[in-house]
């Protein structure tokens, strides 16, 4: 992923806001030295979904797409309040940022098989529905998935053949330039 230029005050603000919020979510109670979570286990996905994010890309379709009535998506970057240990591309690494891909539309069904959000042929993650079932969000720690020209799609289960695609490709916003 290309680095996004950011001015210093804004960077500090973006970094501090999640810290403040995370405190209320109980993050601050954890031992500051114990920054690593168990590998691939309980990552605080639900908290990450709720943290404020920086909008990197957004699109709205001209009309509902497919049986799932997809209306668009947005891609956000989230700065974590503490680093997490997780697996990215087969390597156990500490991360301090996450990326959210949120697909809008629906109302989405609540099914046994989890919703799965893809960029191109790569799985971003299993989807977490919002309360009104109008959005599904997946979280990834792999920034290589978030790239210009990526195609966002949604399936239930890891069913590559059954995906509903959003035709508008990811177009990352450029800091300080035309969007």
């Amino acid at each position, binding site marked *: 992923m290309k680095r996004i230029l950011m001015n210093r005050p804004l960077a500090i603000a973006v970094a501090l806001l999640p810290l403040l919020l995370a405190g209320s979510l109980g993050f601050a109670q954890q031992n500051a030295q114990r920054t690593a979570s168990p590998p691939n286990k309980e990552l605080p996905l*639900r908290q990450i979904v709720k943290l404020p994010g920086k909008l990197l890309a957004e699109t709205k379709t001209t009309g509902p797409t497919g049986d799932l009535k997809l209306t668009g998506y947005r891609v956000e970057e989230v700065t974590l309040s503490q680093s997490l240990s997780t697996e990215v591309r087969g390597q156990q690494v500490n991360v301090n940022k996450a990326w959210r891909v949120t697909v809008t539309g629906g*109302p989405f*069904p*609540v099914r*046994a098989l*989890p919703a799965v959000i893809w960029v191109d042929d790569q799985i971003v993650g299993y989807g977490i529905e919002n*309360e*009104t079932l109008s959005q599904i969000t997946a979280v990834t720690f792999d920034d290589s998935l978030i790239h210009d020209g990526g195609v966002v799609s949604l399936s239930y289960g*890891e*069913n590559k053949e059954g995906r509903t695609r959003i035709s508008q490709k990811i177009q990352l916003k450029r800091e300080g330039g035309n969007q």
Partner: protein
Amino acid sequence: MTLTTKRSLFIFSIAFMLVLGGLSRTAFAQVPDPGTPGPFAVTREEYDFGDTAFTATDFPGPIELRASIHYPTNLAAGPFPVILFMHGRHATCFAGGSALLQWPCTSNNSQPIPSYKGYDYVSEVLASNGYVVVSVSANGVNAVDNSVFDLGALARAELLQKHLDILKQFNTTGGAPFGTKFIGKFDLTRVGTMGHSRGGEGVVRHYVLNQSLGAPYGIKAVFPLAPVDFNRFVVNNAALNVLLPYCDGDVSDLQGVHFYDDARYNVPGDQAPKHYELIMGANHNFFNTIWSPSSPFPGSANDWLAFVPGGHSDEQCGSGKNNQRLTEAQQRGTGLAYMSAFFRVYVGGETQFVPILTGDAPPPPSAQNSNLFVSYHAPDNPELRLDVNRLLNNTNLSVNNLGGAATQTALSPYSLCGGDDPQPQRCLPDQPNARQPHTTPSARSAARGLSQLITGWNNMTGNYRNNIPAALGNVTGFQALQFRVSVNFADARNVEGLAQNFRVVLTDASGASSSVRVSDVSAALYFPPGSVGPVPKVVLNTVRMPLTAFSGVNLNSVRSVQFVFDDRFQGGLLITDVAFASAPR
């Protein structure tokens, strides 16, 4: 032979098969119907300790402690065996006509969707036959389970265990809201669990949890209904029954068949029988009345039509004129019959229903449906099962599990697929996972699928033979020769819509042989129906051939079992689990 003679022979053959089929059914006409209401009047009540009364380990939301309880009104005959039900993932709340996913229901005027009430039709019948049935509400799990790694399996397991703890309190000291009336009325050494959808994995995970805690409750039988199997936990040493709806539009890859496949040879000496039923016209949701289109609650759906793109047009599962779909009532009838049979046998000890679960007896009238296939794996007990060939590894292609030679003539391919490396992960490499449930990957486990023999023949000389060492040739103690098989719809040698067939031949030490056509005892060699999305699909169904059908061969000294492919000019099959077996006692 004249045309008239041929026609007469054909008509005679058909008539003979019908008579034979009728006779085999007549032989089990005395098996009673487990889905018939029993002698006890039934009372239904609920207990409710609040929407946020329970917290599961590392789970990011509160969970309610609420359940219905059906029990014999006259408790004097207690203690009664206990059956726990757990629904699966569904919307948790509704407001007006909109379904919501939150817990507790905090939006303006929103109310809970009572998924736990969806199995009352089973609870009533079981309670009338002398069982206490508790159906647990799990909306708090559903609201946030996609945000935990195991997708809620442990939370569901802990919730079930908590309800058993509550029942234990009712049974010992009593407590609100029932006071002392249930003291001594629950037999918590005889417990069965049924879970639907994600609840299906929940009851399996719960079985494992209860065992890890020293088995404080006696879980005798576990029934995953249209289950997910994300994590690949295994039920060992307890009876297992998986129900698989062929037209499942939600868990459309029928991944729950892994529960059966994984358990078969997992623990040496496992005395527990394992079963599954493939229900040809059933979908995912109709087993729960609250999730069905006739329900007044938002979020209900005919899942095949709602979730499978183009599903309406499928000739088997869709909505066209000649579709094979079951109505809500038929589907619930089938669920009632097999849940009742299973729990009454393995929790209640009512062994008269065993033939229904082995497929030796047809579906009972309460099932309202006969288009289903029963599979059965006998306990690991030398008196009940003699494995001829498990077909687990490449050695089994030449040496079977009895130490005899395994050979083939004119079969191509003749190889294993679906099992552990180096077998190919999928048996039908060009087909989607949803069409090959036995090898579909699991969301949270790298475990591989069912090892199967993939084979076929190009002329009438194909033969698959397993020799039996002399010391093991006395099979008189077994009821049947059985195996699991499916027509490989992706093999062009099979004709779409046409059932396959072959002969099974037993040969004794004197060289005498006897053969039985598969079609004489089973319809399992059907061509898998459907053409849209997840169908057709290969599900290996058990064929059980009664040894009494092999007349003229000495069952004291059987020397070989052969599959002789001379009934159809060509074909392709998937085969596993060749064994002599008897029903559980």
